[in-house]
């Protein structure tokens, strides 16, 4: 009886009844992977740096005990909120990247069909994949818990807050992960999955709420309670709930105004529900895809499904579809462009672009109705969205260029051709640039449109061109480097994301933390000058809006976060700041590219 009891206890404790052998296999494999250790150590390192830095600056304070204690709780609060925000964003990104190859790996290594011939069911496949990766992320969260607990000693932060934030983070991670898994069923390339997931999340968390609020305010003024609508749209939005939760902790009085309280338990339940729904849907699809793969019909099924519906007679030539395109110019560039960003034909891409432009025009219309189009902050927002989407696309696309070749084993053959390493490198870089081009063209279109109607000063084109140039060169260089250096697409994308986040989010956060404690913000302000987001905001703040658009160049005013005593508001200093930033980042990007070239022929196999 005793044995039976312990057996059943073990049965319940060990989740393999739920997940089965897939889970075990994934865990075993992932514990062998160096990248998981690298990830964990990097994560831990960043967190420790946070704490050490703050602690270090804090002990410098001399003064009355009471002052020091109050100072400590300020620091404690600052550290905890920073850590929580950091891990909130970081773990979601990691979840998306980690799960982006979860199913597609099995499909395209032709193992999914094999799995389907075993008694493992699709429930176990999906769950096994999901939980094994989630476990890695939960480990990351667990790493930060002792740190949070230590810092909490400083006072000022209730346990309640720590727990609720971890819950919000966890459900957000699950949702992001499940979404990524869902996309990985139908797309074989990791970057396609990552981009699809990030953009879907962007639409759910950002675009839809903004549109709903804007549209409801301008076209349906009868809605009595905009707050009501607001809270419904925001409920499945972890970013808002997180902010709200933090605000509620800082000043409890603010909570009352929401009709449906954005309470975190409800939010978490909603997120979990959505995840479960998506998972169930994924299971259904996995089975279908797996069976198709087992019978070797994968390709025609994904490519010609529509055609087949139209006419069943065209079964004669199954792999045959579309025209043959001749290779023009550099073969590497041609090849890069041949692979569509989102799987499917060129026609689909054009339709996608058309839909984007139409959506953009609708937002213009809404903003026009609200009389917001001539304001500078409207154009700050638009430009920021373009720049951030451009950043993400560039990060992902450049990091996937070479690793996908490695994964499809075509890299050695390419290296065995008589193309020089420079030719390949430049081809890849141009390919990345060309594939990011639509986004920058949209930005250019936006600028030109509003320059002609005199809502933006023409000089913004020059400034943004400088900004975009260095962003593209730098990120393409680093992406190519990681892609040449690492074996797997996933690792390369994570590395490139990590680089960008460290430079433009983690370091500023750290410096910000120091600044709140020491009240000295010179370093922060000097550093943050080179931040692409800050630069975008300052450029558009100075040149956007009808009040700026018609000014003389010399009368434009740019509000740089300048270190004390300096005044960098003029157009001349703005241009110099941008130019110097461009030089710095471009030389770094070229350095990366050169290193990438040096790594081409190492560790090919």
């Amino acid at each position, binding site marked *: 009886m005793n044995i039976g009891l312990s057996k059943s206890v073990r049965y319940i404790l060990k989740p393999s009844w739920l997940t089965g052998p897939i889970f075990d296999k994934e865990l075993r494999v992932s514990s062998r992977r160096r990248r998981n250790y690298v990830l964990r150590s990097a994560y831990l390192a960043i967190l420790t740096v946070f704490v050490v830095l703050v602690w270090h600056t804090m002990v410098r304070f001399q003064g009355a005990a009471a002052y020091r204690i109050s100072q400590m709780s300020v620091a404690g609060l600052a550290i905890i909120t920073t850590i929580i925000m950091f891990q909130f964003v970081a773990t979601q990104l990691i979840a998306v990247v980690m799960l982006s190859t979860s199913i597609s790996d099995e499909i395209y290594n032709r193992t999914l069909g094999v799995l389907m011939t075993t008694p493992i069911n699709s429930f176990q496949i999906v769950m096994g994949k999901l939980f094994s990766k989630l476990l890695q992320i939960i480990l990351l969260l667990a790493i930060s818990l002792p740190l949070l607990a230590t810092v909490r000693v400083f006072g000022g932060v209730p346990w309640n807050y720590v727990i609720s934030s971890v819950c919000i983070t966890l459900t957000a991670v699950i949702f992001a992960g499940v979404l990524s898994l869902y996309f990985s069923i139908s797309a*074989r390339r990791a970057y396609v999955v990552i981009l699809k997931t990030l953009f879907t999340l962007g639409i759910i968390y950002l675009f839809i709420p903004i549109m709903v609020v804007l549209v409801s305010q301008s076209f349906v003024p009868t809605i009595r309670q905009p707050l009501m609508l607001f809270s419904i749209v925001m409920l499945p939005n972890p970013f808002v709930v997180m902010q709200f939760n933090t605000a509620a902790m800082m000043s409890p009085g603010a909570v009352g105004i929401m009709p449906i309280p954005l309470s975190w338990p409800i939010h978490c339940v909603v997120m979990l529900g959505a995840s479960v729904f998506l998972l169930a849907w994924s299971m259904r699809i996995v089975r279908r895809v797996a069976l198709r793969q087992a019978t070797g019909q994968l*390709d*025609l099924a994904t*490519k010609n499904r529509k055609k087949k519906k139209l006419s069943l007679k065209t079964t004669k*030539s*199954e*792999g*045959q*579809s*579309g025209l*043959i*395109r*001749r*290779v*023009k110019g*550099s*073969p*590497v560039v*041609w*090849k890069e462009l*041949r*692979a*569509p960003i989102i799987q499917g034909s060129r026609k689909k891409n054009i339709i996608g672009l058309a839909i984007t432009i139409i959506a953009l025009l609708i937002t213009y219309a809404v903003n026009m109705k609200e009389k917001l189009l001539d304001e500078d902050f409207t154009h700050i927002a638009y430009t920021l969205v373009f720049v951030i989407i451009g950043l993400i696309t560039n990060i992902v696309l450049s990091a996937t260029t070479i690793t996908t*070749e490695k994964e*499809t*084993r*075509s*890299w*050695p*053959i*390419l*290296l*065995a*051709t*008589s*193309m*020089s390493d420079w030719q390949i490198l430049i081809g890849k870089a141009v390919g990345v640039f060309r594939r990011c081009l639509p986004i920058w063209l949209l930005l250019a279109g936006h600028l030109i449109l509003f320059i002609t109607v005199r809502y933006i000063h023409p000089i913004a084109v020059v400034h943004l061109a400088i900004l975009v140039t260095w962003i593209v060169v730098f990120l393409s260089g680093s992406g190519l480097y990681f892609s040449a250096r690492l074996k797997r697409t996933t690792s390369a994308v994570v590395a490139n994301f990590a680089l960008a986040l460290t430079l433009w989010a983690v370091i500023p956060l750290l410096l910000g933390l120091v600044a709140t404690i020491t009240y000295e913000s010179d370093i922060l302000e000097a550093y943050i000058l080179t931040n692409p987001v800050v630069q975008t905001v300052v450029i558009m703040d100075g040149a956007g809006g009808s009040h700026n658009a018609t000014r003389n160049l010399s009368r434009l005013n740019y509000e740089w976060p300048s270190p004390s005593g300096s005044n960098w508001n003029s157009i001349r200093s703005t241009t110099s700041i941008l130019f110097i930033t461009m030089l710095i980042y471009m030389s770094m990007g070229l350095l990366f590219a050169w290193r990438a070239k040096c790594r081409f*022929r190492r560790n*090919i*196999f």
Partner: protein
Amino acid sequence: MIETKRLTKHYGNLTALVDLDLVIEAGDIFGFIGPNGAGKTTTMRILVTLLEPSSGQAFIDGLDITKKGKEVRRMVGYMPDFMGIYDDLKVFEYLEFFAAAFSIEHKKRKSIVEGVLELTDLQSKGSFTVDSLSRGMQQRLGLARVLIHDPKVLVLDEPASGLDPRARIEIRELLRELKRMGKTIMISSHILSELEEICDHIGIIEQGRLVFSGTMEEIRQRMGVQSKVRVQVANNQQRAIELLSALPEVQDVQSTGRYIAVTLDKDQNTDGIIARVLVNGDIDIVSLEPQQVKLDEAFLQLTKGIVH
């Protein structure tokens, strides 16, 4: 055409190649044979400049592969053991891509691609996506790709693996055709008999060492260390066994039911001796068949004991 001198490769602690000395003459088909993990793929990767040797040198047409990488690549066509597939390309596009990668002019590409498609009998598949081809067709496409820049030297890593007998024969024909076109071909395999008909020279590699190198004739002689003769006698089998065992040339005599299996020492046409001895001993011979040791068996014997 191809020459290696004391070529050595380490992977960490593991030594994959030890002082490999190979010489392959121009216009030859060289069969490179060895069991799994012997170092065939490693050697080939080094030759096509994808891997740096740990020490030693290798030359292709007199060019040092570590120094003249680009020239070597232009001259060599390499077909890896696992074919890299650009899954979203069509057959024609795939080939044209590599034609462009070898900087063949745009104008000439179409006819060249069509030429290799014809040579590999894939004309009808030009507009199929690469991954919709069957395994054998993909293998042929791999060969087509190798030929696209008209290389002097072909390095083919197990081109016949996974093919059905017919496709193997087709590939063999294709290789003969290429030999006629004057190409030097290095081809690897696990199976000696698969190469015996087409190869001029054979190298056998074993745990990174070349254990044998020579012509097909030499290998037959070397491996024909023992030849077997099967004898059937009409009467008095026991006495026949005794008589045969007494011969100095005979290594081993075994009775297998109606037959006597005689293993002879060196292959010096000793069949005559057996017949004479038996006839002199008043034994009627029903049949006497010399049995050549099968090449694969010999190969196993040659490499016996080194690999488990």
